[in-house]
């Protein structure tokens, strides 16, 4: 069994070079948070509003982040801790990294997790993961201001139109994202979680409107995510 690469994959040097992605991403988040916080105050937003937004974002992010962390474990087995950590901390999703890593294995005549998956396949997986994800970084890095100009040309600055634009985008995006779960009726836990999320969100929205409860309205998404997920449990 050629697992000799594993001592390199988990060496202190690898931890150090893989940690750089963590540092860059954290630095960007801190810089952007600082800038938007300052701009928010200058735009007469109240500190209370900014803090409430930050708090709810932090709380909402915990569940999905844990879910990604559990997914990362399947990458750790093949890529080693540091590299799996690096790949999950930067653009791409666990599913993308897994399939890119699998392509690297297949091209070398093996599969992830097989005894023959050695150093050559490992490093091929890495480069395919990185180069595939580089596309997003490059496109956004180069063209992001153009997206904005495109939007301005199409929609202008009318608030009603802008809001219709973003809410119809949201409807389209999430119809696209959730439809596979609705169609795949054989996967009962997924289907239960999807239906749970939909029904609980509808119920909470109607209820919070009836009761005119602002708190409930604000948290209805967070509650629906977790409660919907719990609907999957009876079907496991």
């Amino acid at each position: 069994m050629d697992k000799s690469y594993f001592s390199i994959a988990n060496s202190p040097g690898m931890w150090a070079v893989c940690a750089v992605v963590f540092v860059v991403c954290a630095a960007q988040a801190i810089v952007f948070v600082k800038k938007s916080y300052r701009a928010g105050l200058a735009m007469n937003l109240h500190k209370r509003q900014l803090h409430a937004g930050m708090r709810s974002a932090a709380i909402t992010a915990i569940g999905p982040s844990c879910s990604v962390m559990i997914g990362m474990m399947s990458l750790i087995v093949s890529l080693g801790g540091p590299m799996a950590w690096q790949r999950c901390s930067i653009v791409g999703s666990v599913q993308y990294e897994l399939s890119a890593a699998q392509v690297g294995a297949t091209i070398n005549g093996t599969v992830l997790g097989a005894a023959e998956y050695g150093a050559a396949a490992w490093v091929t997986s890495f480069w395919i993961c990185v180069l595939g994800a580089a596309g997003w970084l490059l496109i956004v890095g180069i063209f992001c201001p153009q997206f904005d100009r495109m939007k301005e040309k199409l929609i202008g600055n009318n608030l009603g139109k802008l809001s219709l634009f973003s809410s119809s985008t949201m409807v389209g995006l999430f119809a696209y994202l959730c439809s596979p779960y609705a169609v795949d009726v054989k996967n009962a836990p997924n289907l239960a979680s999807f239906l749970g999320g939909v029904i609980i969100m509808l119920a909470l929205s109607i209820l919070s409107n009836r009761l005119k409860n602002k708190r409930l309205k604000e948290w209805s998404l967070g509650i629906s995510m977790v409660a919907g997920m719990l609907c999957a449990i009876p079907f496991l």
Partner: protein
Amino acid sequence: MESNTSGVYKAYTKNIILWGRIFMLLGLMASLLPGIYLAVVYQIVPPWDKVLQGMALMVPFLLGGWFVEPIAFFPVLGISGTYLSWLTGNIANIRIPVSIMAQETGEVQESTPEGDILSTLGIGISVLVTLVILAVGAFMGTSVISMLPEIIQKALSYLLPATFGAIFAGFTMRAPALGLIAFVMAVVTIVLGLPSWLRMLIVVFGSIIIAFTMQSHKSKKQASASASK
């Protein structure tokens, strides 16, 4: 007062573009580092012809996504959210939900400069939360998972459908007809077996076009109704 707000926001956006570009470049370089390190220190280089073969397999699937995905998410994320989200990933499952939550609890209107500020704050904080949780997971390995109750571990892998379903339901409440049409379009594109980037293109841009058509139809009706009065 109004011009002051928009002046601040304009300067902020200009500054964000500069920093966004810098961080995208830094992120790209940082992601290459382990490969360079392995090559220099251990002489572990991949068989480059195989990397090329692999990329030849991947690129047809990725190419559409590289362009379509950032554009499709842009109306929701805005400039700052786009830079933050596309450096760190996990957009539909983490960044969008927290953007919605931050704007709700911050009591600002979507699609306004104030909405963008709250969205950016929320996404930025969520990036830090994700990074810390992943770091803990990577350092502690599988032992951290065994600290979670087994039922929660299992359930967490089903968080995604509930998240997508809840967000879809929330926005469909505002425009039920559009939501239903979008959903039918999405299912039809699955049945037709289209590649995912093309499905995304059709469903997202289809929804936008239909929403605007419905809107202009409605306002025309109103206009003709008030004219006939």
